[in-house]
């Protein structure tokens, strides 16, 4: 692994911490986009700049996750007027602590799995696990619908990092399908978020509680 890929992976780890502590949705979306851009560059670094396959994947990631999805998310922020996540289930200090513990856990997990040096190295697996855990953290502890969407996207980022190690093994079709699914998923979620806003006049998922078991 080159010094550049190493630095990029550390950046990905740092962005996870940023995502865990920020309350501003615009920062959250930008952090996700930068993370995705890191992944796009990493695809080229790991698979070589003269591999057309890597260029297609990197281009796809860049177009969808760095340009289109953040654009739609930002539009949703403007339209729903939800700029800050004010009431997370845990405080941001606790979030930072949990995210740090997540990084520790990720390294512990990565150290237990066999990983060939050629394919990835410990740090790639650790960064991927840490990103997945950060995504899950956002999904579990935030109550705004948009934050949860970003959490899902961060989770996908982490999984895609694992996918990078398989770049020269997987048929291109599957990767493009995956990217497309993410995009369509966010698109559909965006529509739902918009509708939640219109129907309930807020996008606080925590207040979506009409469907639950009532005492008979």
């Amino acid at each position, binding site marked *: *692994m080159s*010094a550049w890929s*190493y*630095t990029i992976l*550390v950046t990905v*780890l*740092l962005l996870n*911490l940023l995502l865990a*502590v920020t309350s501003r949705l615009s920062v959250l979306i930008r952090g996700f986009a930068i993370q995705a851009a890191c992944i796009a560059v990493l695809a080229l670094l790991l698979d070589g700049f003269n591999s057309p396959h890597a260029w297609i994947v990197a281009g796809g990631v860049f177009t969808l996750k760095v340009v289109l999805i953040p654009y739609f998310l930002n539009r949703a922020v403007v339209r729903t007027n939800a700029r800050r996540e004010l009431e997370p289930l845990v405080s*941001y*200090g606790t979030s*930072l*602590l949990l995210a*740090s513990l997540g*990084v*520790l856990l990720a*390294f512990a997990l990565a*150290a237990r799995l066999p990983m060939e*040096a050629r394919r990835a*190295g*410990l*740090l790639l697996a*650790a960064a991927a696990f840490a990103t997945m855990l950060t995504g899950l953290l956002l999904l579990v502890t935030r109550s705004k619908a948009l934050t949860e969407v970003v959490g899902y996207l961060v989770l996908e980022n982490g999984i895609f990092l694992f996918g990078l190690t398989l770049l020269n093994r997987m048929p291109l079709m599957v990767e493009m399908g995956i990217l497309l699914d993410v995009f369509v998923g966010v698109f559909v979620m965006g529509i739902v978020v918009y509708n939640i806003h219109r129907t309930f006049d807020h996008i606080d998922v925590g207040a979506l509680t009409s469907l639950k078991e009532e005492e008979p």
Partner: protein
Amino acid sequence: MTLPWWNVGAVLPALLLSPLLLGLMGKTKALVAGRKGAPLLQPYRDIIRLMGKGAVYSRTTTWVFRAAPAVSLASILVACMMLPAGPLDAPFAFAGDLVLFAYFLALARFAVIAGALDTGSSFEGMGASREAAFSAFAEPGFFLVLGVLALKQKALSLGPILGGADVITWDGQTPPLVLAAVALFLILLAENSRIPVDDPTTHLELTMIHEVMVLDHSGPDFAFILYGSALKLWLFGAVLVSILLPGGGPAWASMALFLAGMAVVAVLVGLVESIMARLRMARVPQYLSLAGVLAALAALLLMAGGQP
């Protein structure tokens, strides 16, 4: 324990130049704000002027209050003895001295806090409690940074870790070292009572941390405190500069580079003070835990073997 007496010279830059850091910082702030500012040597003048004055002691204070500035300054001076300066070896080194280094800094802080509590003033008590709380948050981060450096240099003494012939090189370990340096800079700002943690120029006792603790000291006692904080800034700055500077080259060149690096740190702190606002008190623990987390990440990266 070794004590080559001629190495005492390594302490001289700290002793002589540390007040200049304060002056440089003040000048930077003034220039950014568009003022002319106090002359660079103003801190020296302040210290000399204070030394010539007599001290006033409140009747409610005890020997603790009188001993505090001297104990504090003495602790910091001992800490200075363990630190190499650029190419010069530390006068005083043994395996594990980095722990002692950290504890002498803590002892200095303890003395000031004890002196503040001894006055019985509610403002000083408040400042003391804040200082104690925030330094408790900063401590793990500082130790982690020292740990990262020890891990990188595979040594437990500040001498080999920071200075001499075995300076830190950037052999593919850039990210962890950058993280450690950033963490150390954040801690430096907090430990030296700078914005964004504390505002040394504020005029409202309620919002002060460090300044409010030393309100009752006067004359030579206050000079000790002032000189002590200048030395402390020098200590943190020296560790930071040693991380960031490349080693090698002739001794005079690395000495010049070291001093230039210290000046840059002072200017940097001045710039941060000019462009940032003080954090709300409640956010300070978060700020300090961020420093701790960055240092921990650096340690983790090094332990994971760094770049393959």
